[in-house]
């Protein structure tokens, strides 16, 4: 997809997991969202977006994650994020209060 980030999907114990590697900014946020949405099945109640390998997320990326959670909520799907403690993007999630709206986990196992 974009040069800046790659998106790949796996299923872990029946839960769909989308891993985003690279950086999410104004230039590719919309593309990344489409790529994530395209890989997600509509029948799962819980979906995980793994941002462990995402080195940078800006406010456009945060807005994208809010929209994604909202969109999934319409289909009664719950979005979970994986962001390791101490990851550079963790502060961005906290400063924008994203952590209070979307469950964020340290590791994939914790979901």
């Amino acid at each position, binding site marked *: 997809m974009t*040069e*800046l980030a790659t998106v790949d999907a796996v299923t872990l114990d029946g839960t769909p997991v989308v891993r985003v590697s690279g950086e999410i*900014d*104004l*230039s590719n946020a919309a593309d990344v969202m489409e790529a994530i949405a395209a890989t997600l099945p509509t029948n799962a109640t819980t979906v995980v977006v793994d941002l462990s390998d995402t080195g*940078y997320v*800006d406010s456009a990326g*945060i807005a994208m994650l809010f929209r994604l959670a909202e969109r999934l909520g319409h289909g009664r799907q719950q979005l979970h994020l994986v962001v390791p403690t101490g990851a*550079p993007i963790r*502060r961005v999630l906290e400063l924008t209060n994203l952590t209070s709206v979307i469950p964020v986990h340290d590791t994939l196992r914790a979901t």
Partner: protein
Amino acid sequence: MMGQALVRAGSPDPGSRRRPGHQVLALVLVAAAYYLGAQLGLSLSLVDHNVTPLWPPTGIAVTAFLLLGRNMWPGVAVAALAVNLPITATPLAAAATAAGNTLAPYVAALLLERVGFRRQLDRQRDALAIVFLGALASMLISATTGTATLAVSGAISSGELPGAWAVWWTGDAMGVLAVAPFLLCLPLFWELEPWPTARWVEAVALLVLVTAVSAWAARSEAQVLFLVLPVLGWAAWRLQLRGAAPAALIASLVATSSATNGSGPFAAESLAQRMLTLQGFNACVAVTSFFLAALVSERLRTADALAAAATERVRREHQIAETLQRSLLPDRLPQVPGVDLAARYVPATADVEVGGDWYDVISLPDGRLGLTIGDVAGHGLLAATSMGQLRMAVRAYVLQDPAPQAVLAGLERLVTQLPMPEMATLLYLLFDPDTGSVRYANAGHLPPVLVADGQSTFLTDALVPPLGVTTGTTFLEASLTLQPGATLVLYTDGLVERRRVSLQDGLDRLGREALADVGVDALCDLLLHTLSGPEPAADDIALLVVRMIPLTGTPLALALPAEARNLQEMRRAVHRWLRDSGIADDDRNDVLIACGEACANAVRHAYPVRPGVMELEARLSQETVSITVRDHGRWRTPVHRGGGWGLQLMRGLMDSVELVTTDAGTEVTMLRRVTAGGIG
């Protein structure tokens, strides 16, 4: 009929717009000219006032009608009456003759206008028109009217009628042929391109020569009148109508005058023979001069048109190729902190061709740079398009696997399938700005120059034959480390190859000049200036200079088009600067995100209509990083609302954030205390 009416309405009589005073003056002048022309004609009579072989007034009248309009006819009629009254038996006969003399040139002008006659006499059809319609056909009217009047008034017997008619007809026709072109050529002296002095000298010489030759031939007992013709040919060939018409008039006047005196070739002959010789000569003079002049004019016009078309074609091809070439070169070089880059492309100016030279700088996602310079052999559009294909191929291969050997091997496979007429040389370097490491491979290109520690070295390693020469080449790779301050100069052969100077001399000079202690842009200009010298470049020149500069302690300044796709490049530059400045990891991340948000705001809000630039400055002093992000646009929404999450993040991550919006743009200044001194 409608069409004719329209044509006539569209091209009004030239005389109809003249003011009344001018009209009267023109009539008087035409009448006077006609009268004087008639006196000249009478002086050229062969027998008293009866047989006039050249009747200039007809030529004057035709010219007056063509130039001033056919409404000049009263002037001609009055003058014709004045001329004929003293030499005609009765006033009635004089009036009839004058009517014929007026009607004939009137009809001549009418016919010529109808067939689209150009008074410049620069097409063969104009020469044909004036000979057949203007002279021979129209003058049937005056000859028939005049001789019929003579016969009716009893001045000549019916037996003399055919001879008198023939003399009258040829005299009037010759008047048109000799005089009208001469008078018509006069306006051309200020209408056409003026003659240079040399042309005037030639014209005067020609007229002197034609006078001398015709005077001698017309007085010599030998039958050598034909000698005048080559001179007329010369006049027509070199000067067209402006030379041919005066020369023809002189020749005709001299010959006619000689026939009048019965001298030279006309001495021993009867009246009829004299008349025949003279009119034959005059006809030859007129036809030769005007047809040749018209033919040459036509050919010159065609040659001019062809030359202009050819020049235009060459110019257009060059323009297309150059536009293509420029569009294929990078529109800007990436901004990498700690690396100075400069490049030049100079198209060849000695000929109008363009070459297949190019350079490129490719930013890899991991921050490394792919640098290429190359030259597709040959010139013109084909070389430029092949170059464009190669350049894109390099980009594609570099993104796939940036290792030098892999890139060149991929290109070699591709080149065998491209419609490339000839070979291409290419030098590729993979450069890591973080470490200064350079890996390179060279397919037949001139070796790059490394300038370090006051010494120039040509990097001649890893050299294999050019692409497209052989297949199955084993590409080599060499490497080096660029120390801070070291410079690499990449160039194409146009820079070092000069006429009369050996390649080795050119390379030696490059090695010396590259040592200059100046910035990279100045170095490019210096090399172009000193190596190409004053003479225009015979071949294209592409030049790319890379220099590692020590970052520590220096502020960072960036300016990039405010587009989302440039945010990554900006972040990478800031990241490297923060790291090289020894800012701790956590601080570095926070500052980086704040910079990203400030720039994203400029991208989103500053330039709703026209594209613009975002500028970023970063400095470190007393353990405080200060960042300034500036744009020169007008935000669609007020700053405090347009900021949104971006502003929230910036305020959360930095110690202070200040936004100032003026008519000149928006400036964000952010401060952050950092832990400095650590090496990241």
